[in-house]
């Protein structure tokens, strides 16, 4: 297992290097002189000369990349132009909020998606299956920021059950934290639940056709046992993999959800940075989310390796 892990780890190194090159190259896409763009409103010649010197803009591009990646490897993603706070520190403050949101969303997605997928497969061709399929496809088609707006209208404005926006740290007030996070987590979890439902359904249908399920039935195992012990456990393997991969997508989905519910997380950070032309923060967010995504891919591979004995043979 360790050898497999090391082999996979070595394989992701070139990908991470290329991602870093790509994130660095983003700066070159800025229209016009990057020094002017980075200077923002401070456009006097002295500030521009200082920026050129500081970011090594007079050097060839590969040398600029060398300086930049050297700092990144030491955990220095630059300084936010607007807040003057190191980008690493800024991201470290925001990331826990988004991770909490993502974990709650994936829990909700699992609670909705997996049972719906199992039921739909067991009742294939019935109105329940049709309903589950239409619901899943609707979940994939509904823009999560619109679902968020509708829920605010219904749950917060009309019924007054939950706050429409805001955030409270779980360490200060756990109950209030859950009140503010449950609706955004539900919104974020909807499309993931739909994806999980579709994958669980097709995995269950595949497993229910297999020889070992037929054998279990022929041996007289009760239907409930066949489904839970033989079919469901094996159908879960691809679902775990998909679930791990979806965590990466949740980071992206959080951008909109956090914007709608005014949650001060990672996603809101990138939007604020875009409007403040705080390019170091944008680069930091893209780099961190990509590395996280690569890490989750690796974790999904490992989960598949652990759960599926056939790979280990």
């Amino acid at each position, binding site marked *: 297992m360790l050898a497999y892990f090391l082999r996979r780890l070595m394989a992701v190194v*070139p*990908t991470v290097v*290329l*991602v870093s*090159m*790509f994130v660095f190259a*983003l*700066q070159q*896409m*800025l*229209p016009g002189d990057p020094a002017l763009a980075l200077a923002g409103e401070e456009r006097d010649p002295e500030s521009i000369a200082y920026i050129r010197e500081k970011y090594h803009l007079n050097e060839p591009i590969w040398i600029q990349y060398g300086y930049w990646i050297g700092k990144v490897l030491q955990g220095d993603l630059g300084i936010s132009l607007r807040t003057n706070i190191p980008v690493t520190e800024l991201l470290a403050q925001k990331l826990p909020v988004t991770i909490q949101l993502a974990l709650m969303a994936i829990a909700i997605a699992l609670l909705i998606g997996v049972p719906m997928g199992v039921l739909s497969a067991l009742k294939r061709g019935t109105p329940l299956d049709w309903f589950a399929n239409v619901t899943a*496809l*609707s979940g*994939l*088609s*509904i*823009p999560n*920021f*619109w679902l968020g*707006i*509708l829920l*605010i*209208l219904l749950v917060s*404005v009309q019924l007054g059950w939950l706050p*429409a926006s805001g955030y409270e740290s779980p360490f200060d007030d756990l109950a209030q934290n859950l009140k503010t996070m449950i609706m955004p987590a539900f919104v974020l979890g909807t499309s993931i639940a739909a994806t999980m439902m579709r994958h669980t359904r097709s995995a269950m249908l595949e497993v229910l056709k297999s020889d070992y399920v037929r054998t279990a039935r022929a041996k007289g195992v009760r239907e409930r046992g066949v489904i839970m012990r033989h079919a469901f456990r094996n159908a879960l393997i691809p679902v775990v993999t998909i679930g791990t991969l979806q965590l*990466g*997508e949740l*980071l*992206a*989905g959080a*951008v*909109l959800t956090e*914007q*709608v519910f005014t949650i001060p997380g990672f996603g809101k950070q*990138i*939007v604020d*940075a*875009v*409007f403040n032309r705080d*390019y170091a923060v*944008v*680069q930091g*967010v*893209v780099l961190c*989310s*990509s590395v996280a*995504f*690569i890490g989750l*891919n690796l974790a999904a591979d490992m989960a598949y390796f652990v759960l599926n004995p056939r790979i280990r043979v």
Partner: protein
Amino acid sequence: MADVVTTIPTVFGLQIRSRAGRRLLRHRGALVGGFLIVFFVLLAAAAPLFATHDPLATDWLAVRKAPSLAHWMGTDEIGRDVYSRLIWGTRTSLLAGVISVAFALSVGVPLGVLSGYFGGWTDTVISRCNEALLSCPFLILAIAFAAFLGPSLTNAMIAIGLSAAPIFVRLARGQTMVVKSEEYVDGARAVGLAHPRILWRYILPNIFPPLLVQATLTIATAIIAEASLSFLGLGQQPPSPSWGSMLSIAKNFLIQAPWMSVWPGVGIFLVVFGFNLLGDGLRDALDPRGD
């Protein structure tokens, strides 16, 4: 010899397509999806006929008016007719979806085909770069591109297209690797056909079906992405109407004018639902196991 080589895949391709066509016509989901798409395309094409007001005209005497006979879906925060803006917004959404996917296809398919067909260093370089781009979550990548290119609908479409291209690179590469080992491609090589001709005549037509399915599903994703970027202020800029930017403004008037938040979302949902239904239907219809 050359004639034999050229006829086999074409005839086979036609058989597959006609069977797939019949299966598609029997697929209820695909029919509903197709109907929804045709409806929205007609709405977009004939927007001046369907709109009852100028979508940009403001009326300070009709600010945030609830739906009525004069304004079927009410008015917005500066008295513009929501219904007319919704109709014109259909154009933005459909154009953004189709153009960005066309852009993604035009970037992704040639790279994927070259990668899969030639293998070796070409494949290594293209695949590694593609994996790096696939490592970034789609929307974050689109936001980053839009941020560095500047906020506008054109840049949003480029950003979405660039972000979606890696999916087509991967798909085209995989399909090309399957098709290039087919006997008819070996035959074409044996009779000395040049690589560009083999790629154009034999590889591209045979990798088309899965690309068509993926393109249909990606249009749905691209429409949501455009709406998302416009919602964040990185897509269509005011005062031009777009469903995403309409929702972005509506968010600020949830209590005073809730009708502003409903219809643009319904529009996005229905058109995306249509493309997803059609994409699913196409996938089922083009699946050879369907027989």
